[in-house]
C-alpha cells in the first residue's frame, strides 16, 4: 500500500479509530506478580542509590528473600538494566546472603523474620520492597498493598532516609507515605 493511500485511509479512519477501541483490544490482563515485577523495576528507576553503591560493571542485584513468588513473572526483568547495570535476579535463603543486593524483595512469608532482615540491612543502601500489610511501618521502604483490584504501594520515607536512598518525588506522589511505627509514639 502506497504511503499516500495509507495516509488518506488513516485520515478517514481517524474519527472512528478511537483510542478506547484500540485499548480494549489489548492482551489478557497482567498477573499480580507481573504487575509487581514491573513496579519493582520502575522503583529502581525512581530511586537514587548513593554513589559507589554499585561497583562499575557490576550487575544490579534484585534479591528475592526466601521463596520465589514471581515464577514466570521474573521474565519481566530479563534483559533489563538500571543505570547501565544489568538486572540480576537472585534468590536468597537467608538474610546473610543479602549482602551486595540493591533491592531486596521481602514476601509475606518473611513477616516473622522481618526484624532480623531489616537489622542486617541497616544503614545499607538497599531498597527493601515488602509484600505484606504493615511492612512499611516496620521499616520496609516500599510496600505493596491492594486497593480494590489495583496494586498500590506505600513508602516509608524514614526507612528510605536511613538507607541513604533518595526516593523521587514523582514516586512519592503516587505512593502512600508512611513513617516508622516506633518513631511515632
Amino acid at each position, binding site marked *: 500500500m502506497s504511503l499516500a493511500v495509507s495516509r488518506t485511509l*488513516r485520515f478517514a479512519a481517524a474519527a472512528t479509530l478511537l483510542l478506547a477501541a484500540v485499548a480494549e483490544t489489548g492482551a489478557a490482563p497482567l498477573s499480580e506478580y507481573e504487575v509487581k515485577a514491573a513496579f519493582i523495576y520502575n522503583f529502581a528507576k525512581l530511586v537514587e542509590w548513593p554513589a559507589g553503591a554499585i561497583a562499575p560493571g557490576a550487575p544490579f542485584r534484585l534479591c528475592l528473600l526466601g521463596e520465589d513468588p514471581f515464577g514466570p513473572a521474573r521474565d519481566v526483568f530479563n534483559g533489563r538494566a538500571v543505570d547501565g547495570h544489568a538486572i540480576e535476579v537472585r534468590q536468597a535463603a537467608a538474610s546473610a546472603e543479602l549482602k551486595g543486593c540493591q533491592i531486596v524483595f521481602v514476601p509475606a512469608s518473611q513477616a516473622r523474620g522481618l526484624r532480623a532482615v531489616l537489622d542486617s540491612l541497616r544503614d545499607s543502601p538497599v531498597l527493601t520492597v515488602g509484600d505484606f500489610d504493615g511492612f512499611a511501618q516496620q521499616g520496609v521502604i516500599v510496600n505493596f498493598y491492594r486497593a480494590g483490584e489495583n496494586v498500590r504501594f506505600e513508602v516509608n520515607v524514614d526507612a528510605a532516609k536511613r538507607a541513604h536512598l533518595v526516593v523521587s518525588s514523582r514516586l512519592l506522589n503516587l505512593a502512600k507515605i508512611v513513617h516508622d511505627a516506633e518513631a511515632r509514639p
Partner: protein
Amino acid sequence: MSDGLFRRASIGRKLMLIGQLTTGFAVLAVSIALIIGGVLDWRSRTVSDLETYATMIGANAAPAVMFDDRKAAADTLSALAAKRSVTYAAIADKAGRTFAEYRAPGEAAPDVTTRLDPYHFMMSSVAVSRPIVFKGERFGTIVVQSDLRDVFGDLARNLTLIVVAALIAFAAATALFRRLQGSIVAPITGLARTMQTVSTTQTYSARVPVHSRDEVGILSQEFNGMLEHIERRDAELAQHRERLEKEVERRTAELSASHAQLQRYSGQIDLLSRMGATLQTCLAQDEVAAVVGPHLVRLLPEWSGALYLLKNSRNLLEAADMWGRQRSAQTVFAPNDCWALRRGLVHVAAEALAAPRCPHADTGAISHVCVPLMAQGEVLGTLYLHNSGPMLEQADQGLLSRVAGEVAQALASLRYREALRNMAIRDPLTGLFNRRYLEEYLEMEIARTHRKGAKLSVVMIDIDHFKRFNDTFGHEAGDAILREIGQFLLRQTRTGDAACRYGGEEFIVAMWEATPDAALERAETLREEVKLVRVQAGGKLLPPITMSLGIAAFPDHATLADDLVRAADRALYKAKFSGRDRVCVAGSE
C-alpha cells in the same frame, strides 16, 4: 485577455496592464508566501506548543503509567484544563490500551488515535502524540488534541490583513503606474499623432516636440530629422519637376515650332521646286517676272517686293514685277543705288543692323533685302523685298537666295537662248539680222500682211563707193563703216521692222504695214540722216557716207518674198545707175 485584444490595446493600456499584472503577481506571490509562511509558522508553533504540553504532561504522567495509577494519570491530564484550546487528551499504555483520558467540558467524542504520527491535522483540530518515556524506556503514549477554531480566527485575521495590505499595495502601484505611464506614453502618443497627421495630410513640415532624452526622445528626434530630410527632398523634387516641366514645355515648343517650321519648309521647298519648273519653261523675261511675284507672295507673305532687271543699256534697273501689300514706289534706279549690286552679295538692311539702307529702298520700309541676280559673273538684276516688321530670318534669307538663284538661272538661260538664236539669225559684225532671218521674216510677214490686207515694204540699201573706202582706208575702216551703219539702221527702225545685212555692203530694212509712199518717206529720211553719221577709223575721221536705196512693196510689186527682194534690188540698181545717193521705188520706171 486574448493576445489580439492585447495587441490592439494602446501602449498606455499595455503598460498599465503590464504594471498591474507584474504588481499583481508580485503582491500575490508575496501574499501567498506570507500566508504559507504564516500557516507553516502557525502550524509549527501550534504543534510545538502541543508537543511541549504533551511532553510535559507525558513526563508528569510517566510514573502514573509506570505504576498503573490511572487516577494519578487522569489527575495529571486534567492539568490541561488550564489550556482552553485542548479538547481531548489521552494516555495509552505500552500495549496501546487507553490508560487515562481528559475531555474538555462540553466536548464531543474525540477523533484521534494514539497510533498517529507525531502530529496530525484534522478539519478543525490538531492532534499531537508523544511517547511517554522515562529514563530511556517507553511506557506509553500521550495524545493531545487541540481545537484550532481560535487559531483559525487568528489566521483569518492575519489573512485579511495580508489581503488588505496586498490590495493597498496593488492600488498604490496602479496609481503610481498610471502617473509614470503618462510620462512614457504622452511622448509616444504625441509621436504617433504627428506620424498620423503626416501620413494622412502629407504635411512634412510637422515636427514632434522632443521632451526627453530617452529612446522615445531619440525616436522623435530621428523622426523629425527624417521629416526634414523628406521635406528637403520634396523641395528638391518639386524644383526638379518644375525644371523638367519647363524643359519639356520648351522642348515641346521647340518641337512644334520646328514642326511648323518643317511644314513651312516643306511647303516652301514644294513651291520653290514648282517655281523652278515653271521658270524653266519661261520663254521671256516678262514671263519670268510674272512667275516670281506670285510665288514670293506665297513663300514670304509678310514681305512685299519687286523684281528689278538690268536693262540692255546696263545703266538702269527697271521693275519687271511688283507684289505684296506695300508696293514699292521705285520703278527705276541706277545700279549704284543698290548695295547688293555693288557688292555682288545679299544685302540685308534692318533697324537692328548697322548695314546701310539701299538708296533705292522704300522710305516706308523698316527692313529690306536685296539679292543680286547673277549668272556667270554677270549682273542680271535685283530681287528686292521689304517689310515694315522685323528683318528677314536666316532661313528665309536662304530661301530667298535660292529663289534668286532660280530666277537668275532662268534669266541667264533665257539670255543664253537668245544669244544662241542671235548667233543663228544675226550678223555678228553689224548686230543686224542676217539674210536667213530676213527670208523667214518675209515669209511670216507676207502671210500675216496678206491676211490683214495690209502692205509690206522692203527697202534695199547699198553704201555708195564702199570699195573705194575699203581700198583707201583699209578693211578696218570698211568694218567700222558697216558697224556704224548697222547701229544707225537699228536706231532708225521701228519695233516690228527688221533691219538685215543682206551681204557685203548691202542692207535690207523690212517695214511691216508700210505703204510704198510711207516707205519712200522713211527711206528718204535714212538717205539724209546717214550723211550725219561720223565714222572714225585708225584715229581718222572718215568722209561722210551716202547710200542708195531701192523700195519694193507687197503686194504692189511682188507677192513672193524672193520676187519682192529682187524687185527692191532692181529698184536699188536703178538708184545706183541714176547717180547714187537717191531712192528708187520698184515699177516706177
